[in-house]
Every structure is written in structure tokens, then in C-alpha cells.
């Protein structure tokens, strides 16, 4: 449905004191993606990684410097710029709708821009704004504004939906409804790309994951593939009372164990880690091993690696260096080798 090959876009930065001589700033560098119809791709990365730039480049707001963007097997240039935009719906990050007009009018205006016959009312109903159709935009909460932005993105039933941090401002109930809506859309053949910096949130509904860091794709595939490739499989967090396993050897080979501080009512708490992650049978074996020896388990939880862990594994940088760093406007390539290759 959507293929990106070696797509590069860099923002021009004025070069003081000679502003007419532009130098290249931050952007995205040689990004490859293949998103199939009916799938949901999660795009994650820290602030300034290039997630929004990538989405804007796909949506046609940025003209890429090099590479190819193909929609349904056809180059965007051949398909025509405006025609390509007809296939794509974009929900930008935190649109702060303002003014005295209403969601119904705002949507009607976008419908007029598209020159299509969509019903704004139906779309507003779909995103749960039936009772707020005529509320002035300036009086709406951020959650309502997010819903209106989603309604705009859904106009014209696009084949590709690009959502930039869509969960911002939504309460947990609305988030769950939002995830259901996205799954329904994907089941109806829409290819969806969702950006976020929250891996735990993504894990709930995406089919595949792309990690972006300093404008480059550092890993791409299903969540399990990405974790496996980066050696960051989920760990098991176990807590309880009674018998405590003395070492990781109690659970077979290739397992590492790390003791943690026990919480109130617990005698022990530790994490178990394996490079290949944990299947349900293996989790069951761990449970049996502890309970068979007289231990009582009060908590058994799968803990996903954090975004910092993944980025750290992908880039080879220390997690604390990645944590607060934002890519500078002169983009520095983080790596040129592929995951799994030798450096």
C-alpha cells in the first residue's frame, strides 16, 4: 500500500549572516518503509527523532529531497501530488482548534477543500462528538479537539491514515475506544501509521514497529522481531513469599536473574531475562519451579523493554545519554550498519 525507499528530507536552515545561503538542518535520512493495507505500524522515537517530519513527508507536506514514495505501487509524482493526498488522511499532533466556528463548520470547510460529498455529521458521530457538533471550537477540551482532528483525517475514507501522537489528551476510556476504532479501520483495509514515544501504549494495538532516532530508521519489523534483533526481549517480573530461588540456574540455561527491592507484603521480588523472551509454556515452567519448591507467587508480570532500552541497543549509546538528548539541527548519522551486522 505504502512504500518508502531511501526517502530523505532535510529542513533548510537560514545561515546567518547570509540567510540566502541555506544549509541543511534536521530531517529524515534514507528511510525505508513498507506498510501493507490492513496493518497498523507504530512509529516510535524520542522527541526530535523525526516522527512528525516523516509523517509530513508521507502526507506530502514536505517535498522529499531524494528517494521514492509509492502509493499502491505507483510513484507519488506519477499519481499527482493532490491526487496522492486524496488517498492519505493526516491527523497532526495536538491541533489547538480555535475560533468561534463549530466542529460541524470546521469539518464542512475541509469537506469543501476536498471537493467531496462526505457528511460531517456522520464523521463527528463516528468519533463520538454527536453532542458537541455545535460547540464553539474555543470551548472544546483537548480530547474533543483530538477527536475533531481524527474526523478530519478520516474524511474521504483514506487508504492510508497517518496519526501523530493521537492519544495525547485522551482519557483512558477514549484511548481504548480509539484503539478499537483503529483496529476496525485496519480490518477494513486501511494502512495506519501511528507515532508515539510510548512503547507500552503502542504494544496494545500495533502490528509492527519502526524505531526512529535522529532522523534514521534504526529498527523495523514486528514488535517481537525488533526486540529479538536488538536483544531486548521482555522480562518476567516475579514477586512472592516463602521459598526464593537462589539463582537463575533454577530456571534453566540462558536465563539471567536480577533481584529487586521487595514491596510491602512481599518477601522477595526479581526479574528474569532471556534473549528469546518468554513463551506461555516457559512462564508456566517458572511458576511450577517456584511453587513446587514451596514458594508462593503474588505477582507474575511481563515487562516490555523501555524505549530507552531499545534505542540504547539499536544505537549503541548509553541509555542515560539518549534519555534527554534532542537531535541537533545538523543531523548526525547514528549508524550506517543494519541491525544484526557487524559494525
Amino acid at each position: 500500500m505504502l512504500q518508502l525507499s531511501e526517502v530523505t528530507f532535510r529542513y533548510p536552515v537560514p545561515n546567518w549572516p547570509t540567510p540566502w545561503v541555506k544549509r541543511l538542518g534536521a530531517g529524515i535520512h534514507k528511510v525505508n518503509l513498507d506498510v501493507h493495507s490492513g496493518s497498523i505500524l507504530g512509529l516510535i522515537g524520542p522527541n526530535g527523532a523525526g516522527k512528525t517530519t516523516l509523517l509530513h513527508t508521507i502526507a506530502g507536506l514536505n517535498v522529499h529531497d531524494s528517494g521514492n514514495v509509492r502509493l499502491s505501487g505507483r510513484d507519488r509524482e506519477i499519481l499527482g501530488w493532490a491526487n496522492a493526498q486524496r488517498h492519505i488522511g493526516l491527523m497532526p499532533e495536538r491541533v489547538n482548534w480555535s475560533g468561534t466556528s463549530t466542529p460541524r463548520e470546521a469539518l464542512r470547510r475541509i469537506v469543501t477543500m476536498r471537493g467531496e460529498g462526505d457528511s460531517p455529521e456522520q464523521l463527528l458521530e463516528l468519533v463520538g462528538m454527536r453532542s458537541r457538533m455545535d460547540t464553539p471550537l474555543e470551548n472544546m477540551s483537548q480530547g474533543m479537539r483530538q477527536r475533531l482532528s481524527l474526523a478530519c483525517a478520516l474524511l474521504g475514507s483514506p487508504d492510508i491514515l497517518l496519526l501523530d501522537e493521537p492519544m495525547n489528551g485522551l482519557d483512558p476510556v477514549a484511548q481504548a475506544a480509539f484503539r478499537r476504532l483503529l483496529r476496525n479501520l485496519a480490518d477494513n483495509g486501511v494502512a495506519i501509521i501511528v507515532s508515539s514515544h510510548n512503547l507500552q501504549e503502542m504494544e496494545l494495538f500495533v502490528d509492527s514497529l519502526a524505531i526512529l532516532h535522529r532522523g534514521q530508521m534504526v529498527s523495523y519489523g514486528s514488535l517481537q522481531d525488533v526486540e529479538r534483533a536488538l536483544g531486548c526481549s521482555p522480562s518476567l517480573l516475579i514477586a512472592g513469599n516463602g521459598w526464593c530461588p537462589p539463582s537463575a540456574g533454577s530456571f534453566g540455561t540462558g536465563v539471567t536473574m536480577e533481584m529487586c527491592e521487595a514491596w510491602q507484603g512481599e518477601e522477595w521480588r526479581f526479574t528474569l531475562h532471556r534473549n528469546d523472551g518468554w513463551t506461555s509454556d516457559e512462564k508456566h515452567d517458572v511458576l511450577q519451579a517456584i511453587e513446587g519448591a514451596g514458594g508462593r507467587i503474588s505477582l507474575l508480570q511481563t515487562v516490555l523493554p523501555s524505549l530507552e532500552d531499545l534505542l540504547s541497543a539499536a544505537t549503541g549509546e548509553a541509555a542515560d545519554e539518549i534519555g534527554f538528548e534532542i537531535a541537533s539541527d545538523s543531523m548526525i548519522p547514528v549508524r550506517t550498519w543494519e541491525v544484526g551486522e557487524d559494525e
Partner: protein
Amino acid sequence: MSRLTREKRILNLSWFEARQHFRSPRMLALIALLTLFIGGGSWGLSDPHSAVTAQLGMDTPYEILFLVSLFVLFSSTLGVVLLGFDGISRKRLTGELAIELAQPINRTDLARAQLQGLWFAVFTPTAIASIIGIILIYAQMDVWPSVGEIIYFMIPTALVIYWYACIQLLASSIAKDLGSSVTLGVGVWMLFTLIWLLVTAVIASLMGVDVTNLESVEYNRFSEIVDLFSPNGVYQLLLENKLSEEDKPTMGSTYIWGAALLWSLIPSALFLARFKRLKP
């Protein structure tokens, strides 16, 4: 898409834009400004007992309209600044611009809709205030200006509002935040409305023209040329062109209308080109 459908779509979008301006609280401020300046100016200047220091006749309704044009220049152009200074920058800051630019519509069409919407939102109350002004002139002088004079007054008024709309939206598209929007918008307005006389005098003195006597023929000729580079100046020259022979500008109509044409083309072309390259 046929040309007609495209134009209809642009008109529809312009109407959306204008309606948003009509309902904004800033429009209230604009209406108050226009009523006070154009209405009050028309009433005061057409009063048979009033006198102005300028050596201009105030005997015919058109001559009064010409003097009222000074108030139009001040209030309507300020109105364009009020409504348009953040026309693009606000949408950029709120994120609405990204949604608009992601739609399958030609960017030129989108820019034209924005421009026409702003122009319509300011020209409509200005035209209404001018008509009220004409009625007030009739009430004072008991003579109507001819239909031709009214139309001739309205055309340059519509043009000067259009020029300012282009300039404001261009400035707003350059500004990245609200502060620079205000600075650019008000700065351009102040340059042409308040500081231009000073600019003219400075250039004249640099070029060896005697600036000690602002009524001299030499200085007047020079200031007419410099005025061609200001939208306000061209507006005044266009209106002066219909005054009696002794009050007419010394330069030919071709130059004035030529400047009006260039002022209509260059800022709008710059704005459209800028909008095409705009990033959210």
C-alpha cells in the same frame, strides 16, 4: 475539475474564511473604527461650516469623498492588519495549517481563498461605512455624488484593501510566532501610513530636492513618484485623478494605473509563491 467548479470551490472557501472573520471579536473593533472614522469624517467634512487647512476644495460631494479617503486609508488598512496579521501564523501555531495543507487541493486555490476571504471581510464593512458616509454627505450638502463617482471611489478602496490583504498575509506567512506576526503586520502598516512622508522627505533631500517647502511644484512632483511605491500613495493618486484639473496629479494616468496594476500583481504573486512552499 472544470475551471468553473474550481472557482466555485474557492469562492465557497473564501466565504468560510470571511464568515470566521465576521464572527470574530476583532470585527467589533473594526466596525467601531470604520463608523467613527468614515461616518464621522463624512459628517464633519461635509458640514458647510467646517474648514480644512489643506488647499483643497470642499464644494462637491466627490471632493468630500476624496478627503474621507484619508480616513478610509487609516481605518480600513488598520482593519486588514487587525484581521489578517495572524492569518497564516495562527493556523501554523494551532496546527490547523497542517490539516489544510494535507488536503487534496491546489495550494494556489487555498491561498486565493484565504486572500479573498480577508479582502471580503474588510471590504464589506468599509463599503457599508462608505455608503453611510455618502448618505451623511447628502444630509449635510443636499447633493448626491454621481453613481460614476461612487463607483470610482469604491474601486481604488477595494484595491487598497486587497493590496494590504496580500501584504499582511505574506508577512503572516513569514512570521513564525505571534510576536513577529504583530511586529511585521503593524510595522508594514506604520511604514506606509505614518512614516511614508518622512521616507519621502529623506529620499528627496538625499536626491537634492528642496524639502523646506513641501508645497513647491518640484517637491510635489517628486513625492508623486515616491508615492507610486506605496499602496497608500497609489490609492491617493487614483482618487486625485478624478479631481478638477488644478488638483489632479502632475503625472499621467497611465503611470498611476500601471502602478495600481503592479501593486495588484506583485504582492499577490509573492504571497501565492510563498504559500506554495509553506511548511506547517
